[in-house]
């Protein structure tokens, strides 16, 4: 007995010593956290450790468990097993409020701001200062808000209604709100998903400021290049498991990708040889949109991928939307030599112009409808039985199965709603939807926005095979310059509604695209006189 007792004490001391050494190092720690949703193991024994004052990136593909982990830290979910330790002490977050009170603030990807309230009201909603007569003390409220915004170096007036702000400004209001809780740890869920490059830079600047002020930041993102810009450390999750944590300064993009995907993604080989005999499929002459796009000419050849680059507001998305029949325009469009009138989206559809919209949620998915019905909605005309006009369910299933298979879409049941899929798979459904009616020309707006590395590679591969094997001409609008350089045969760059660059071959590189999109440079590659 005595011996046993001694052993027991020893064991205790051992544990306590171990605990102590951890305490000094980490501000926030999860100990072997597991979480299941039904049969799905979202997290498996995750030990996630964050030091005080660092910017810690949390990366992984869709479905890797990032969201679950931050929701557990934020008190939205409770772990099935394991514990959370904050500043040395075990904590139990029963709900989001308890986590907030402990100093953890989450900025979710989809803002939870109330558009009609002012900036100050949004920051302090539910915690407004009251005057002695019970009315809101606007002076104090606006003053406090101004203080926080100034601390963030942001010139946003507290009295402005939130709906008048840009996306980036809204983000700063979210950050200001997080800080107003006296947060020690700010968790950002894909903060740049809706920002353009310029706005992202401003956000990074703010993150660096916050880091200087000794805030701890957990930064969830898909975009590796961002992590190298701002993060100190990166932790990779895959299939609910923590694969590893790396010092950003000591790792490489390649290594992180390998950790995320589990294997090397072969770099797609750029198409070397041009199509021998170029056959014109779409010819746009003198397109004019609302005086925001002028004199836009473009010839698309069968089987080529053409990029459309430019900063936001350059008109690149307007051209895409005009061709899809969403925006009215003047000018002439010829499809396979014949003049066509694209007056509305359904005529574009009938001509065989496929379109992937820019905003997945607002313009793409039908949330109440099933996975299958979301995919086939553009192809129904071809699926109608001749006599009864009923949809031929067998044919519909064949089309669905075929596309779901080539696109490698992961789903449980095709009759579940589309909301049961991850973002990457939703995007694949939308791409399949554009392809289902068998198009000749495919207009893609931001085809890989907000999806993970693996899905992105798959979509890229698919685009290549659509162009090479099915000889579809693809016009791709993208904000991601490396993607344009790697994927396109030719890239049109726009600035303020006009074409400022036509880049091909050697000249198609990052520097030239940026130069044409933002500077005074005008480049037209020699071998593209045809245009």
């Amino acid at each position, binding site marked *: 007995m005595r011996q046993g007792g001694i052993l027991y004490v020893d064991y205790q001391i051992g544990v306590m010593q171990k605990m102590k050494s951890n305490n000094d190092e980490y501000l926030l720690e999860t100990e072997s956290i597991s979480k299941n949703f039904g049969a799905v193991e979202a997290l498996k024994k995750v030990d996630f450790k964050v030091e005080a004052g660092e910017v810690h990136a949390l990366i992984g593909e869709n479905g890797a468990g990032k969201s679950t982990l931050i929701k557990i830290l934020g008190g939205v979910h409770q772990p099935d097993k394991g514990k959370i330790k904050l500043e040395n002490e075990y904590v139990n977050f029963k709900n989001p409020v308890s986590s907030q009170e402990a100093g953890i603030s989450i900025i979710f990807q989809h803002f939870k701001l109330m558009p009609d309230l002012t900036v100050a009201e949004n920051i302090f909603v539910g915690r407004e200062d009251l005057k002695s007569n019970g009315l809101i003390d606007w002076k104090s409220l606006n003053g406090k808000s101004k203080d926080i915004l100034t601390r963030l170096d942001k010139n946003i007036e507290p009295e402005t209604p939130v709906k008048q702000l840009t996306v980036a400004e809204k983000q700063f209001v979210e950050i200001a709100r997080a800080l107003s809780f006296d947060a020690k740890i700010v968790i950002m869920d894909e903060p740049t998903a809706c920002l353009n490059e310029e706005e992202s830079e401003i956000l990074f600047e703010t993150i660096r400021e916050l880091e200087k002020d000794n805030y701890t930041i957990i930064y969830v993102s898909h975009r590796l290049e961002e992590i190298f810009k701002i993060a100190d450390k990166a932790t990779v999750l895959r299939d609910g498991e923590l694969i590893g944590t790396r010092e950003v300064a000591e790792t490489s993009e390649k290594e992180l990708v390998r950790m995320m995907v589990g294997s090397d993604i072969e770099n797609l080989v750029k198409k070397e040889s041009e199509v021998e005999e170029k056959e014109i499929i779409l010819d746009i002459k003198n397109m004019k949109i609302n005086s925001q796009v002028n004199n836009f000419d473009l010839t698309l050849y069968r089987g080529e991928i053409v990029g459309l680059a430019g900063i936001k507001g350059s008109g690149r998305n307007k051209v895409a939307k005009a061709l899809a029949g969403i925006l009215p325009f003047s000018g002439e469009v010829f499809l396979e030599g014949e003049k066509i009138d694209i007056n509305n989206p359904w005529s574009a559809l009938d001509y065989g112009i496929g379109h992937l919209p820019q905003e997945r949620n607002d313009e793409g998915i039908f949330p109440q409808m099933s996975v299958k019905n979301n995919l086939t*909605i553009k192809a129904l005309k071809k699926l109608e039985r001749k006599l009864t006009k009923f949809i031929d369910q067998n044919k519909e299933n064949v089309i669905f199965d075929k596309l779901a298979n080539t696109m490698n879409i992961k789903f449980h049941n095709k009759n579940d709603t589309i909301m049961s899929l991850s973002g990457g798979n939703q995007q694949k459904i939308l791409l399949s939807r554009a392809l289902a009616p068998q198009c000749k020309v495919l207009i893609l707006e931001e085809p890989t926005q907000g999806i993970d590395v693996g899905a992105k590679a798959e979509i890229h591969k698919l685009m290549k095979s659509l162009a090479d094997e099915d000889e579809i001409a693809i016009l791709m609008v993208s904000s991601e310059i490396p993607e344009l350089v790697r994927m396109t045969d030719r890239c049109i760059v726009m600035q303020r509604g006009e074409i400022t660059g036509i880049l091909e071959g050697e000249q198609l590189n990052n520097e030239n695209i940026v130069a044409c999109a933002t500077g005074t440079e005008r480049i037209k590659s020699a071998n593209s006189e045809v245009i």
Partner: protein
Amino acid sequence: MNYWKLYNRYGLIIVILILGTFLAIINPRFLLPYTLINILAQASYAAIGGAGMTLAIAGGGFDLSVGSILTLSACVVATLVPTHGILLAILAALLVGILLGVGNGIIISKLDVTPFIATLATLNIIRGLVYIYTAGRAPILIRDARLNAITAGRIGPVPVPVIIMIVVFIVFYLVLEHTRYGRHLCGIGSNEEAAKVTGINVDRAKIIVFAITGLTAAMVGVMRAGQLMMADSDTGFGYELTAITVALVGGTSLSGGSGNMVGTFLAAIFVTMINYGLNLIGAGVFVRQLTLGALLIVAVFAKSYGGKILAVSK
């Protein structure tokens, strides 16, 4: 948890069976074929309008003007039967319903007025038309008994309204579940912006769906006029609420994007059974109205509560 799953799928059937057992206990004559068929015939009036309403709700709208359209069509058929004959009178009444519905659809799609405001306005406008049309004449009595035979008589043992109802439900079910138009409607109800971008002719689909609700209202108007052999300015009073209630109790969600035609059918029968039961125990019309309202809250609450439980247990 599984009870909720069961309720979601078979809730109405279970509730109908329970209520049926109860009614059979307090009045054994309830189980006579005659009573059951009568209940179906009674249910057809709520069911047909409910079917149209289900389509409108699936498409993200709803139609408050059906009661007024019903009244006007009833008055049109009643006034035209003596002068133009039964067939033309019925066709004219149905045409009135379709045209008023097209008007609703144009206001909603082309003028971009929300369905609530647009149909609230036309509810009043059409009611005004009824008063102008029937000025000094209401109630308009119908003397041609053939109209009653056509709209409320029987073919063999089966009442005509039941046949009409069944045809309407089969057609509407097929339209909603098996046609391009049905899918497009659900797309519009689910995400209108996406529907536009996807190449759905949103305006046309909306105009058609309101023409359909107008048509169903006019059908019920003609049937009512034939049943009662008269029409007056109160014939369709409150019918819009009956139609919406039946659709919602049937499990169609007001948020749009899907419709439950079978549920609407069952809900119409259920509501009629409740009215039958209340009649049986001698409850007045006020109690019936009160019950209908309470029923709506209970049904919608059960659906959303059950849905939440299912979502969590997932």
